[in-house]
């Protein structure tokens, strides 16, 4: 080390007075406020995001419409008055009538239920087994992983809509004239059959990442069984990505249902749904007369799916900023 006996100007010995320095106890921690775990912190983050409030507003309206459509209109959506076919908006009928003489506004309101239910059930049916399979594949690895992953790959290779189309046509041939719920669940399972591989992939990826973290090893070292570790530590910590995916999927499946119905293979014509109304309004688009017939269900569909996708985005931001702040 070089010697420097006489300090140069500006380099003299300087010692700050202890009172002026933040030499607080290094062991202290902020004990104000209530404890916050990861989810509570994410929730706080979420609440500070405009995207969340916009999507929450959209989705609350949608939820009320789905549960209590009669609050918004007292017109029966299945009552057709052919004499008013394609009539424009008038008092009590703000959106006018479609070709069959149905009230367009009433059908848009009542159509929400079928569309949203399909999205909701499809997401549930896809997510639960998807997480289960993905978690097993990622956690146990080896032959379990190979089997699950390869089967998922096979289904992943089939386009969602094409697969669902074929599936529904087969069921339509075997079991025509199903009731309301049977029709809805046909669409749900047709979509789910080709949608689950994505959940498996995401869940498997997250589990692979989490299972090698030190707290999992520490839990093994205290004698926790592998299964207890999987459900107690690994799966709860892998949920972020799955939650985001599920939220976005809700919007995607609602659109997928509408597409199927538009192609004439989704919900049967008897069921009031946005997809069916869009299909019926095709003629108007071609002729260019009374585009309003298509405008209403199309807008409702777009806003609803937008709501879910925005919410997915906001949740993703909230959970991500959590992981960014960790270090």
């Amino acid at each position, binding site marked *: 080390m070089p010697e420097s006996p006489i300090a140069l100007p500006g380099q003299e010995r300087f010692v700050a007075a202890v009172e002026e320095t933040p030499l607080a106890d290094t062991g202290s921690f902020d004990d104000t406020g209530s404890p*916050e*775990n990861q989810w509570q912190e994410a929730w706080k983050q979420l609440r500070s995001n405009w995207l969340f409030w916009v999507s929450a507003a959209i989705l609350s309206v949608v939820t009320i419409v789905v549960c209590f459509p009669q609050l918004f209109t007292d017109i029966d959506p299945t009552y057709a008055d052919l004499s008013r076919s394609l009539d424009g908006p008038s008092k009590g009928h703000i959106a006018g009538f479609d070709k069959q003489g149905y009230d367009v506004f009433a059908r848009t309101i009542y159509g929400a239920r079928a569309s949203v239910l399909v999205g909701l059930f499809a997401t549930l049916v896809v997510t639960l087994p998807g997480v289960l399979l993905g978690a097993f594949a990622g956690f146990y690895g080896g032959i379990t992983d190979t089997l699950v992953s390869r089967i998922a790959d096979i289904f992943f290779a089939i386009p969602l809509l094409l697969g669902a189309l074929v599936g529904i046509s087969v069921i339509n041939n075997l079991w025509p004239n199903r009731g309301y719920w049977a029709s809805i669940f046909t669409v749900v399972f047709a979509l789910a059959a080709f949608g689950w591989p994505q959940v498996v992939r995401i869940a498997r990826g997250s589990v692979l990442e989490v299972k090698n973290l030190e707290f999992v090893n520490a839990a093994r070292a205290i004698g926790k069984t592998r299964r207890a570790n999987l459900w107690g530590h690994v799966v709860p910590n892998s949920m972020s990505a799955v939650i985001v995916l599920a939220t976005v999927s809700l919007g995607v499946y609602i659109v997928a249902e509408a597409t199927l119905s538009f192609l004439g293979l989704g919900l049967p014509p008897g069921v009031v749904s946005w997809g069916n109304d869009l299909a019926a309004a095709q003629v108007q688009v071609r002729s260019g007369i009374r585009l309003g017939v298509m405008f209403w269900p199309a807008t409702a569909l777009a806003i609803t799916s937008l709501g879910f996708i925005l919410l997915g985005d906001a949740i993703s931001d909230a959970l991500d900023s959590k992981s960014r702040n960790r270090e």
Partner: protein
Amino acid sequence: MNPTPLLQVTDLQVAFSQEKIEVQAVRGASLTIYPGQTVAIVGESGSGKSTTAHAIIGLLPGTGRVTGGSILFDGQEIANADKKKILAVRGSEIGLVPQDPMSNLNPLIRVGKQIAEALEVNGVATGKEADRRVVELLEEAGLPDAARRAQQYPHEFSGGMRQRALIAMGLAARPKLLIADEPTSALDVTVQKQILDHLDRLTDELGVAVLLITHDLGLAAERADHLVVMYKGQVVESGPALEILQDRLDDYSKRLIASAPSLASQRLLAQNRTHIREAAQEVAEETADEVAAAGSEFGRGKETIIEVKNLTKVFTIPGGAPWDKNEFTAVDDISFKLRRGTTMAIVGESGSGKSTVANMVLDLLKPTSGVVEFDGVDVSTLKGKHQQLAFRRQMQPVFQNPYASLDPQYSIFRSVEEPLRTHAIGSKSEREAKVRELLDKVSLPWSVARRYPSELSGGQRQRVAVARALALEPEAVILDEAVSALDVLVQAQILKLLADLQAELGLSYLFITHDLAVVRQIADEVLVMEKGKMVERGSVDSVFVNPEQEYTRRLLDAIPGGTIELSS
């Protein structure tokens, strides 16, 4: 006659704005550097040392900005200077060697081209001339076979070689000042020493002033003429390096010096360690007798608690084709005995296989061959849940990364209680009392119990990890780099805690580390590993005083600040 300062920072204030709130990162820092001098800023993470350096070179990240004070470089004000002025200074007048050699080179561009870029941007040389200059610079930075190396991509370089390339880049335009931001903290100690020695020589020859940013007081004292100690954004002490070390006035610097293992371990009283060991061994023997009397599977081994015989682990790694398998021997024929109530340290640089040994001892990884005996029982012969749990109860780990060793979704209470619950020990209220006692043992207030890991600092989390490891009242604790990720002050606290607990509870420690300086503080015996093989084994005193192997000697020489005399 006094020379004029090259850099004069006066009362520097830096703030980051975070959602409309200003967070002060540096408050009133002042420092002066003269031409050709080496000045070091020392501080823990979060002390504002890197922020100060980045403010000087105008590279504050994100929302950071200089809110007050002045930075005079060569008589020019460069704090909040306009872009043109900063660009003229950056690179050509002030060079930077960044911290992480792994992420500071573009992996898609040849190393030589990246250095040539630095030359061209600063108008030093272009085209063919630049290429020739690059080779000279790399040679100067101590890279053998520089002409060929310049044509390679960063992934073909080792960490040390990359750091040399970055030094070449920082010195490319012959700046007057070189800022080296933790230039070697990502490297193994032996490489660190080579690089710093070389940097010293080079900057002396070229007459470049160096601003060295480091958390390692020993290293700073060894390399710098003038030290600036920072803590939480403030300069708490500055002055000539020797003066600070030998005549410490400031409370923080005092604590820092006392904590820095490389400096303190010289003076750490050997009797102190002996004392701890004797107390621990006594308690440990009593415990062993009790366990044996209770008729457990364990408690037969008496003197030796863990014995490892010819332990070998071979990993198969994919070769050039899917059907090709290469074998990689991570651990090669390691044997040692851990005596009850003592500490055995396994030391090695990254990739030496020391953590693999820990995982095999913990029975988290099956050895390819060899035997791990715990208390006279071969661990691999344990059968059934009952025996497994009994074994787990006796041996517990504490891992390296305080940010990953606790489940972020578990409250502290739940994390510490988890082992008790898993082993179905006690009623709910008994478990609560036990957690209370454990937190108390590691000097944490009871109020942390309801908090979550993300609300605690690294040192506090590591205390929680220690509390959890002790919940089952084990006889042996495996500490896998348990203090490596912590700042020196916190590291010293944890080491002291571990020593106290050892004396009180008669624990035996297997201490895995890359840091020889720490070993001296806590261990009784040491085993040095290199590339999976055992290099040397013996008592800490004999290995430190008379290392038999060349490799051990090199490791010891590389401890920064190891030779500085401290007044006691």
